[in-house]
């Protein structure tokens, strides 16, 4: 009887810790280790080094087809709605996106639909200036849906190529605030059929397993077309996107790697996984 070759217990523990340390999550890590075990049973031996390589390949497979940057197609303006919980980097990321597209000679408009948080409008205004983008805002406290409605009218009239809408951060558990996002989306579609073509969820790489319910609820509420993972310039690995990949088929589009206007990259699954552990 051929005994199945098992991964050495010490090695298994070490691998699990690497996965957990990257915020991949204990259940997803367990599943990845199961597949590593299956591979090991099929061949004679597998030390830590080989198993790490195997795990990286398994993770890349989960994330494949996940990297896809932003593109302006034929339909103009391309309307992008940025959403996410508080403080993850939505406003800053909008500045970065605006800068990239306006550098290509495209006409970009930024819409200050965070009418709630102190100085949110001023913050986005600075980014619009830095990026060379047009800027639309109303008084703090005004209805975000109304701001967006008027902004899209102006965008069409001025022949904008791209419109990016900044929304206030909100926890996914706050149903009334999630409903507000639904309403903003609906109003956009009324004003410009097809808008918003992109609804991007911004996730902070330092976030742990809570990113999974965040992604699920924002997707359930709005239909997310892409994820942006910010603050990857820190020490957090952002491995929770591997757990998210099990639940949603949303592609990771962009990553934030700093606070400057140029600190934005397309998501590259190869590079991301190599950096995980």
């Amino acid at each position, binding site marked *: 009887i051929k005994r199945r070759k098992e991964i050495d217990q010490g090695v298994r523990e070490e691998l699990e810790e690497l996965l957990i340390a990257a915020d991949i999550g204990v259940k997803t890590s367990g599943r990845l280790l199961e597949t590593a075990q299956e591979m090991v049973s099929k061949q004679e031996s597998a030390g830590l080094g080989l198993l790490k390589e195997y795990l990286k390949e398994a993770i890349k497979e989960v994330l494949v087809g996940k990297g896809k940057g932003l593109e302006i197609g034929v339909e103009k303006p391309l309307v992008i709605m940025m959403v996410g919980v*508080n403080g993850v980097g939505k406003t800053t990321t909008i500045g970065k996106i605006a800068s990239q597209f306006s550098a290509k000679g495209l006409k970009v408009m930024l819409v200050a639909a965070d009418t709630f948080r102190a100085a949110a409008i*001023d913050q986005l205004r600075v980014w619009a200036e830095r990026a060379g983008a047009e800027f639309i805002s109303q008084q703090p406290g005004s209805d975000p849906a109304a701001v967006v409605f008027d902004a899209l009218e102006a965008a069409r009239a001025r022949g904008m190529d791209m419109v990016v809408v900044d929304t206030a951060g909100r926890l996914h558990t706050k149903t009334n605030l999630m409903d507000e996002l639904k309403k903003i989306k609906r109003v956009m579609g009324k004003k410009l059929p097809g808008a918003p073509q992109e609804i991007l969820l911004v996730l902070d790489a330092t976030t742990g397993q809570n990113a999974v319910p965040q992604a699920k609820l924002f997707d359930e509420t709005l239909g997310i077309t892409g994820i942006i993972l910010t603050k990857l310039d820190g020490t957090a690995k952002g491995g929770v996107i591997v757990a998210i990949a099990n639940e949603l088929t949303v592609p990771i589009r962009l990553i934030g790697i700093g606070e400057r206007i140029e600190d934005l990259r397309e998501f590259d699954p190869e590079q991301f996984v190599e950096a995980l552990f």
Partner: protein
Amino acid sequence: NLTEKLSSTFKKLKGHGRLSERNIEETLREVRMSMLEADVHFRVVKEFLEKVRQRALGREVQESLTPAQQFIKIVNEELTRLMGGENSEMDLSGSPPAIVMLVGLQGSGKTTTAAKLAKYLGQKGRKSYLVPADTRRPAAIEQLKVLGEQLGVEVYDSRGKGDPVKICRKAREEAEAEAKGIDTLIIDTGGRLHIDEELMGELERIKEKIEPREILLVADAMTGQDAINVAGRFNEALDIDGVILTKMEGDARGGAALTIRALTGKPIKFVGTGEKLGALEPFCPERMASRILG
């Protein structure tokens, strides 16, 4: 939840209901899974489980008539004790102004929390002066100014006053001027990475120059395994006095709280429970423990 899960694991104990080593290991695995899902750092979980294992193998469980109940009680006790707050009040004694300095990663909630603290201390009869020491983030100074206006709390005008170290020093000089009657300075610093040597150095220089009474790390309740790196580095650089955990009204389990507490030994003093300026509460160890266990 974990208590239900553990109870059902224990229900599988047949007959005499004594806990074998194997029962304990099985149960510890359940607790481990729950704590890791709650974002507690895996090393902190390991150490915690070892403490629980030692107690579970001891007489109090082995000789108990209800070992399962006793086990669950131990898990809760150990966790609450770990979270627990000796000295979880701010120490603002001494000659005024008492200086509170908020530090932490980008977007954790420092600026909002600075204003919340001013309101909280105002309710305790203190007169605060808010100091915007973030010279980098667009409209950061404006943000604190707006919040101060909402509260009727004075905000130092940092614009054109130089770098953050200068701002803090000048603000303190202004606060010390008798006429203002200010007894507390609350410094809002810009978010920064714990691995940014230059910016961490800036915080060290502010500490050196103005000697804050309380240096509080403001951390997001949804922080994952990285909490160990962040807390370790901020504590090493500044010897923080405590922690404020923000965005706690969400559904993040908040395991970072245990990571930070276990690593630094520093108390969690407050939790942020919303975006409005009244949403700040003193930290409750029992509630945090049961939330982490799930």
